[in-house]
């Protein structure tokens, strides 16, 4: 992993954002991998992994709610921070900047719908059994 490239290096296990924090930034993974972790009543669940060129942390920018999950480095990872203010100002001038963001969020909603469907099917099968 080049020391001269963009962003900042997070070591294995280092927290990039913590669930419940106020969100002022988005993040783009430059190199390596992070895990998105959701904590409920003391139990951690890794929701998914994210890798190179993925934009993360955008939900808190748009819905102004606390972070819904923790982003944690899985191995050594390089991450670029994007400023909320710069991003929203640019969207104001160029709404098409949001195309890719909407595309990403749509894909995630689709993936989540799929997972909900699978979980319900599993639960239904268990109930029948």
């Amino acid at each position: 992993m080049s020391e001269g490239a963009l962003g900042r290096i997070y070591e294995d296990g280092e927290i990039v954002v913590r669930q419940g924090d106020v969100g002022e930034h988005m993040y783009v993974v430059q190199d390596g991998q992070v895990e998105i972790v959701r904590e409920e009543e003391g139990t951690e669940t890794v929701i998914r992994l994210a890798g190179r060129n993925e934009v993360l942390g955008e939900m808190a920018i748009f819905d102004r709610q606390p972070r819904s999950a923790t982003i944690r480095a899985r191995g050594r990872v390089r991450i670029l921070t994007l400023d909320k203010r710069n991003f929203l100002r640019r969207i104001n001038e160029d709404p098409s900047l949001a195309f890719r963001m909407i595309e990403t969020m749509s894909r995630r909603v689709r993936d989540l719908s799929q997972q909900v469907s699978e979980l319900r099917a599993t639960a239904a099968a268990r109930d029948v059994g």
Partner: protein
Amino acid sequence: MTFPNSPRPADGCDGDAVLTDGSRVAVIGGGPAGSLFSYFLLDMADRVDLQLGVDIFEPRLFAKPGPVGCNMCGGIVSESLVQNLAVDGVFLSSDVVQRGIDAYELHTDVGSVRIATPTEEMRIGAVHRGGGPRDVTEAKWESFDKHLLDDALGLGAKIVPSRVEAVGREHGRPTIKVAKGSPVPYDLVVVATGVNTSILKTFEGLGIGYQRPALTKTLIREYYLGADQINRSLGTSMHVFLLNIPRLEFAALIPKGDYVTMCLLGEDIDNALGDAFAGAKEVRAVMPPDWDPQVKSCQCLPHINIHGVEKPYANRVVFIGDSGVSRLYKDGIGAAYRTAKAAARTAVFEGVSEAAFAGHFEPVCRSIRSDNRVGRYAFVLTRVAQRTSLMRRAILAITRAEQERGWRPRLSGILWDMFSGSAPYGDIFRRMMDPVLIARGVFVMPGVLFSTIRRGGRAAGEPRSREVIT
């Protein structure tokens, strides 16, 4: 509405000009403006199921070292552009970014100050636009321009490796002619040649209201130091100089992988001014002790656009990047991005008529032009600081106080945005007038005056220790 017997719209008033399936677009120039335009045009067209053919006319080979692949530029990708590209899916890998920049060091004859990014991360990219300086035999990096061009080609654009020799009009459509070829009509011609070319003169002769922009010359030199030497001397900071050297307006040293790029702006810039700057003690203090300013790897004196074109569009023709409207002195690649994207957006969603560009492309150009007008005042203040020792001392004292006392970084932020080109000049100028900042000036002034009087007897050239405040 057009009736069968309506007269054909006069050239320049083709209000119904839109791109449809099979439309052909010519992009003259495959630098950042042309490549980004092609990338965004094809990306947006795909979103609305529009099939377009895009030809990029670019005879240069960006992977080749030296002038054949160079686009003659300092090679800084600003903080805001890095972020915008990331959101737009244009990924700048560590092969492209030769050095991430996490700080600016401002050097004056009365001291130096380091302004680091609050997030302690590499926020700015130093890149080689082409294959690198003349003495490179094998590039260890990927050219920035080639990287963007490859992204456009990846979406379906085609490269035409020929120089455009002539442009014309045929039945209301622009035509392009290359050597040994016949004029070929296109539905849209996008001019992204930069200003260091003679083809722009041809467009003035087309009667479409285009007039070439006002230009100034810059001096760019590349010095080979090797990565280890750069790590030890310049590090990951861009070094900016406010020196009272006649004719010099702005100077910077940009560290890259193995090279350092020297960028100068000024009046009647020439080699002598470059030598005067390179020989200044403040520059020698930053560079390694055994550095010889006469041993340069490459040098050029390219022009830059300092007064945007008033009407950078016509019916089925649009001028982007430096050929049209660019940002004053800073972030030319950022302006290329903004104008390229605005032109692509207009072409896909609004049409390619003069009226469409006037309504949807021109506002972005106007915003850059009016911001440049404010920028001129901001640079006047910089010039005053360059020539006034008291002001230079005040700037250093306030910045030092902000960093040592943990004050909100008002002046540090202004200097960061001014040098990095990360914020509009209007925004920077407003912040310069901030009463709290003025109060800080008053607060530090007794110390500055005392220091000026105490050191007043020292000649300008007298040696002093290099003081860096972090």
